């Protein structure tokens, strides 16, 4: 029997370390000699902390939401008596849950299975075999294999990987670089973090294969500083690989030398853009540079450099080991293989998933994701973060591949998928993203620097109930100019969240501007919390919970909210007992 606990950032945040400690203490206590293996994240973040029990037949039983209380029961019933505790099980080999069933794991193949801090775990799964195999072929063959696989960059743009490698290979230079882009800037996405934390060696191996293919001897991982655990595990992995001779001089006794170092980002979204990333690596302000020359020609310190996203690189060893055709067998015509998505927002089963390209959004959200939290109405799903857009319910049948998603006005992006329900205001979402891009604009291009600011001001006044006739058209016009007049992808795509919400949710904009109402009842300036005197029984709960003490009344008499002082935090609505339901949220327009 084996025990495994997920210790990714999400597991740790949910208390997995405490659970592991008490599990170990309890096992010791009972004189049971089984080691608890730490692992990365299997993606079922909504059930964290997770405990896997793997019996001697290899059957896996996954327990969710384990805590100090139910751990005892699981030990006594399952580990000692061999009777799985059904009520705490969230998944088992016998009864796979829908969340894992609909998935196909290539990039995430080892996540949650191996101990990311032990290199032999990775090697037992076939790790570094692909590198060994690659070194027996010519770099040209490797690039051909990647071409056959149809692999496209997972960092957002979807550029064919083989093409970039070939360009970097063909550009002459004594010193070339392979750079791994682990800056993961999309707020609301965590695919790369999870990969780095759960399977760091697959990234190192992918980088080594890329380096061999293009003729590079040095690798750099640019990782955001907000991911301390990922950085720690990468450092451990690099040291272990060096000790085993898998990094360093003459790898596998081949005339190939390669080493990797880590550079920590310092919190700037634009540094995910490859030329800005290079500027940052060189110790400068992360401002994008004009392309061409592309990094493949003149990158880090002016040398040919190849930049790939974490997930792109994680696919590489699998492709070399299993062949390009095996990868290309999955997915749609122009988008091959699988894609990892971070499902978040108003979704029941939030977490990390990997699915073949070409599945529909509906299948992902309803079958794998389990539908909308509290069974509310689906409104939109946001793809591509600040560069992407919101896709409405009417397009849920669309196939998830690069071309189809782009046709909606959104982009595939790096894999963030934030689900929104009827309580999400789409004008506010647009304002939220513009606030982000406006702050993150590096300031180099006038259109991006000032255009995003003006767009933000207009969106703010619409949310504030001060929108004017013509604002929608003005947003569209400025948006178009910002797209045309910006140097890098940040500005070129910053208007997307605004333009797609106008395209699909124009009525919400109009309600804000013309009727001064927020249909989702979200925008503070347009809503009011009131207490229905007929229903209020004067229980005093809301007054106690009001952070600004603006609710007053006599016990057993109806209470009143002082609208002047109300900060609209919504606490009163939350605490009012359902049997009274006396607090009403007004402002949606029409209904009271």
């Amino acid at each position, binding site marked *: 029997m084996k025990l495994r606990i997920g210790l990714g*950032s999400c597991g740790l945040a949910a208390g997995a370390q405490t659970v592991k400690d008490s599990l170990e203490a309890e096992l010791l206590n009972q004189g049971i000699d089984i080691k608890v293996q730490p692992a990365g994240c299997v993606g079922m973040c909504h059930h964290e902390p997770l405990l896997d029990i793997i019996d001697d037949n290899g059957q896996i039983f996954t327990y969710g939401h384990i805590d100090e209380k139910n751990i005892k029961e699981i030990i006594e019933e399952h580990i000692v008596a061999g009777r799985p505790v059904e009520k705490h099980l969230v998944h088992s080999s016998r009864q796979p849950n829908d969340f894992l069933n609909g998935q196909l794991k290539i990039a995430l193949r080892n996540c949650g299975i191996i101990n990311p801090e032990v290199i032999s775990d990775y090697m037992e799964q076939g790790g570094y075999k692909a590198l060994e195999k690659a070194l027996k072929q010519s770099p040209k063959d490797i690039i051909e294999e990647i071409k056959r696989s149809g692999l496209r960059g997972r960092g957002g743009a979807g550029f064919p990987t083989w093409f970039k490698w070939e360009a970097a290979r063909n550009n002459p230079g004594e010193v070339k670089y392979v750079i791994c882009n682990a800056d993961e800037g999309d707020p609301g996405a965590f695919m790369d973090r999870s990969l780095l934390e759960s399977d760091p060696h697959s990234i190192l191996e992918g980088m080594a294969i890329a380096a061999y293919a293009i003729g590079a001897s040095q690798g750099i991982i640019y990782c955001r500083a*907000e991911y301390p655990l990922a950085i720690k595990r990468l450092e451990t992995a690099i040291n272990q690989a060096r000790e085993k001779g898998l990094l360093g001089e003459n790898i596998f006794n081949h005339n190939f030398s390669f080493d990797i170092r880590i550079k920590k980002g310092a919190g700037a979204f634009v540094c995910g853009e490859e030329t800005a990333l290079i500027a940052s690596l060189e110790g400068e302000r992360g401002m994008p540079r004009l392309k061409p020359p592309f990094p493949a020609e003149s990158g880090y310190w002016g040398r040919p450099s190849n930049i790939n996203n974490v997930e792109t690189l994680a696919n590489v060893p699998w492709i070399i080991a299993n062949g390009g055709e095996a990868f290309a067998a999955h997915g749609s015509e122009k988008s091959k293989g699988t894609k990892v998505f971070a499902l978040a*927002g108003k979704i029941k089963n939030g977490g990390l998933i990997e699915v073949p390209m070409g599945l529909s959004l509906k299948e992902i959200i309803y079958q794998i994701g389990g539908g909308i939290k509290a069974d509310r109405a689906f409104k939109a799903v946001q793809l591509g973060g600040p560069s992407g857009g919101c896709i409405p319910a009417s397009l849920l049948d669309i196939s998830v591949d690069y071309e189809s998603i782009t046709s909606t006005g959104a982009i595939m992006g790096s894999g963030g998928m934030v689900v929104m329900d009827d309580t999400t205001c789409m004008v506010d*979402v647009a304002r939220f993203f513009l606030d982000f891009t406006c702050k993150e604009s590096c300031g180099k291009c006038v259109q991006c620097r000032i255009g995003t600011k003006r767009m933000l001001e207009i969106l703010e006044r619409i949310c504030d109930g001060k929108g004017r006739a013509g604002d929608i058209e003005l947003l569209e016009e400025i948006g178009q100019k910002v797209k045309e007049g910006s140097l890098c992808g940040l500005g070129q795509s910053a208007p997307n969240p605004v333009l797609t919400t106008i395209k699909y949710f124009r009525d919400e904009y109009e309600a804000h501007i013309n009727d001064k109402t927020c249909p989702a009842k979200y925008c503070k300036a347009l809503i009011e919390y009131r207490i229905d005197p007929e229903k209020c029984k004067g229980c005093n709960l809301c007054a106690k*919970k009001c952070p600004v003490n603006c609710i007053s009344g006599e016990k057993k008499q109806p209470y009143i909210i002082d609208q002047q002082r109300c900060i609209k*935090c919504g606490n009163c609505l939350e605490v009012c007992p359902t049997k009274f339901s006396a607090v009403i949220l007004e402002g949606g327009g029409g209904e009271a």
Partner: protein
Amino acid sequence: MNCCCQYKSREEIFSQDNIDLGLIKAVLEKYRGDKGNLITVLQEAQEVYGYLPLSVLKHIADVFELKPAQVYGVATFYTQFRLTPVGKYLILLCQGTACHVNGSERIETVLLEELKIKPGETTADGLFTLSNVACLGCCSLAPVMMINGQAYGPLTTDRAVKIIKDLKAREISEGGEPA
């Protein structure tokens, strides 16, 4: 718009604080000579001092043979760097997309009310600094905040306030010297 120098001379601005520059001697030794390491040096200096005092920026500029303005430019470009001291507890409140959709603004409203500060500010007792950040990578636990490296989620307004109150109570019972 205010001029950042407030009419003082450059020397005056960059040397006004009482800071022991010797604390980063080893860091500078390790990285000197390669200006590509500037960001790493700033990160390590911030770990030493808790923030980046202007005199430290000037010192780094001298050692790296760069203009102070260039180092200042880098330090102000990246959100990780702080030019002012922070409280004993640094609250990173996530305002990423997933947290926003799950009500992070409401959490912010009550936290600011509880702490009586604005975003980015530090409480008068020097205990808490609240900083809004974009995505801590635990989106499935949204809304999330992180206090000195420990993540908390999913938050409700109640739970968020309780966490702060507990920390305050702990400070008082331990008689901890406010930072």
